[in-house]
């Protein structure tokens, strides 16, 4: 590139000149410890493969297949301090399902999601309305602590079991300065059974008709709907309507 006019040829090739010869391999013999190390690793590999391969099956996802673990049971009550455990679970359930909208500090988001801290709905003497909201959701306008909210809360009847609902409601009723009676799983069970036929979210208007506390509240469905009355009503539907209803219900 320099038109070949430089005169100092050796200097031009200084890099090549000072270069050392190309590398060669020495012949240090293989250390015996290397062989021992490799043998040890191979032994470990064999035993690990035998124990944790799940039989090389395509449907075995747990590596401890030889004695497969029974289907996991959710951490139940009993053992050490049940109250502490319940509180801990309540906090975790809140953080998983509720904090996204109602926020970790229970203050909600202005105009969007109502607060739980100091909310009159939370601090009512009994859990009848709260349990229903968690089971089936809530929609339409609602007034909380003087503020207006009009959004939709989804139903958690299939996502949470009765113990989780009881624990999270107890947590909510006793956090951020709230002080109210705990909610028991038995109360949740009773309300869930009573509202078994209910579909669709609650509205604030409907809920206000239900007393906050006191026994197993009557289902607030339109009219009185006993199981027998329900059966009669269903028998009156055409097969197609019945099929459509079943599909709708089983979603």
């Amino acid at each position, binding site marked *: 590139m320099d038109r070949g006019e430089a005169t100092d040829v050796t200097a031009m090739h200084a890099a090549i000149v000072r270069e*050392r*010869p190309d*590398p*060669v*391999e020495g012949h*240090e013999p293989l250390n015996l410890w290397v062989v021992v*190390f490799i043998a040890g690793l191979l032994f470990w590999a064999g035993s690990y493969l035998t124990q944790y391969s799940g039989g090389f099956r395509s449907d075995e996802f747990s590596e401890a297949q030889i004695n497969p673990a029974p289907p996991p049971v959710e951490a139940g009550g009993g053992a050490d301090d049940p109250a502490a455990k319940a509180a801990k679970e309540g906090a975790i359930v809140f953080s998983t399902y509720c904090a996204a909208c109602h926020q970790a500090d229970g203050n909600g988001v202005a105009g969007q999601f109502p607060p739980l801290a100091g909310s009159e709905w939370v601090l009512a003497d009994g859990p009848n309305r709260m349990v229903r909201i968690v089971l089936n959701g809530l929609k339409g306008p609602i007034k909380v602590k003087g503020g207006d909210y009009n959004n939709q809360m989804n139903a958690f009847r299939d996502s949470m079991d009765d113990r989780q609902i009881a624990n999270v409601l107890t947590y909510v009723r006793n956090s951020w300065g709230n002080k109210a009676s705990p909610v028991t799983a038995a109360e949740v069970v009773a309300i869930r059974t009573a509202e078994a036929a209910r579909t669709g979210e609650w509205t604030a208007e409907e809920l206000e008709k239900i007393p906050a506390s006191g026994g197993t509240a009557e289902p607030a469905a339109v009219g009185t709907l006993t199981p027998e009355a329900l059966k009669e009503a269903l028998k009156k539907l055409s097969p197609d309507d019945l099929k459509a209803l079943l599909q709708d219900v089983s979603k």
Partner: protein
Amino acid sequence: MSSPSKTFSALMPGDLPEDSSKRALLAEIDASCRVPVLFFVVSGLLWLLAGTALALVTSIKLHSPGFLASWEFLTFGRVRPAHLNTVIYGFASQTGIGVTLWLMCRLCRVPFVAPGLATVAALFWNIGLTVGVVGILMGDSTSIEWLEMPRYATPILFVSYALVAVWAVITFRLRQERQLYVSQWYLLAALLWFPWLYATAQIMLLIDPARGVVQAAVNWWFAHNVLGLWFTPIGLAAIYYFIPKVIGRPIHSYYLSVLGFWSLALFYNWNGLHHLTGGPMPAWMITVSIVASVMMLIPVTTVAINHHLTMWGHFEKLRHSPTLRFVVLGAVCYTATSLQGVANSFRGISEVVHFTHHTIAHAHLGLYGFFTMVMFGSLYYIVPRITQREWPSLGLISIHFWGCFLGLVLYVAPLSLGGILQGLAMNDASVPFMKVVEGTLPWLQIRTLAGLLLALGHVAFVANLVWLLARVFGPYRKPVVAILTGIETPAIAGK
């Protein structure tokens, strides 16, 4: 003026006397490499600058999510894969190919065959890459990690690669040197393995996608093997060449070289599915990958012994040779990242570090600490020989080395620790998720700082290179800075 060979033997007492005609062949080989190797190297370094810029943007976005957030083409989920593909396929692969071409020519003792072919290959590679990276930013990312470039870009890259592979086979057939040095085994292996990996991934993930999680298996078989069967062999080949070459001693043990090569070839490619530990894959696939990952201790320790025992007792040479500095740093990082990788593959440790920033730190220790440092070292050696010009500035070399070294330490150490803390917090269900996120903030901010140091190093290097290349176009001048063997050749001294 004494003849070149006499000058040489006067400089290097005790070394084998070399016939000056063999040196002339080396000069011819270097000259024939000039255009294709420079094309790959310069393109690679320009992509390094682009990749570094994308890296800084990505890093800032992670701790300041509002940064540049209103533009769709700069959203985090796009700049992050753009950064990945730019540095892997733009910088690392092209520089790797450039170094491979030169090493193959030198080791086979054959001047560059069909330089036009390689230059066209480089052109296609750059076109394909540009199309691919722009495609990612425009929204066509495949969201398959390490394979994000859209389908319309990859055939262009494949054509380019096919040309390189053909060239490699021809050069190998024409070789004058019958004995195969260890570097050649690694380079040939890399050149043959890569197209197989790429073709499988393209077919089973993009052209005719496999069903469900089989995609995940193929994805991670591919991605891990790009690291282990493409970048690692090229990096190891360079280390095996440059350490003994620069210090003038043989590699410690041939038998270790053989063991290291074949154990890497056998075990590395089975590692891939350790990326899916705990995931929706049958247990045997994960177990097999964990076993292979632990068996990697064999090649890693044998290579470490070979490299480090060859260096032993010669550490003062690090002061004078930037090549050696970078290459030895790379070799140390190779050992470190491999040991970290073996540890991470155990289920108990994966339980903590999977899904955390620890994995990112590990990836950078490997690709940056090992591969990039080795490439930098190689370039410090190769570029003066193919251009017949010396590096103009010692200062820029220092800035480059210290920027990269300090940046690397500041990146990897804090983020590895931060990732472990993140994982431990995440595994405690009573810690709310937002608290876990808050805990990672300081580590992410330190990482941006580290990135700035790395960027400084890269800019210094490219500036030095541009300065050197500017001199290529001018008439030959005595180098302003005597180069760093610590010896001034008598031919230059006194002028």
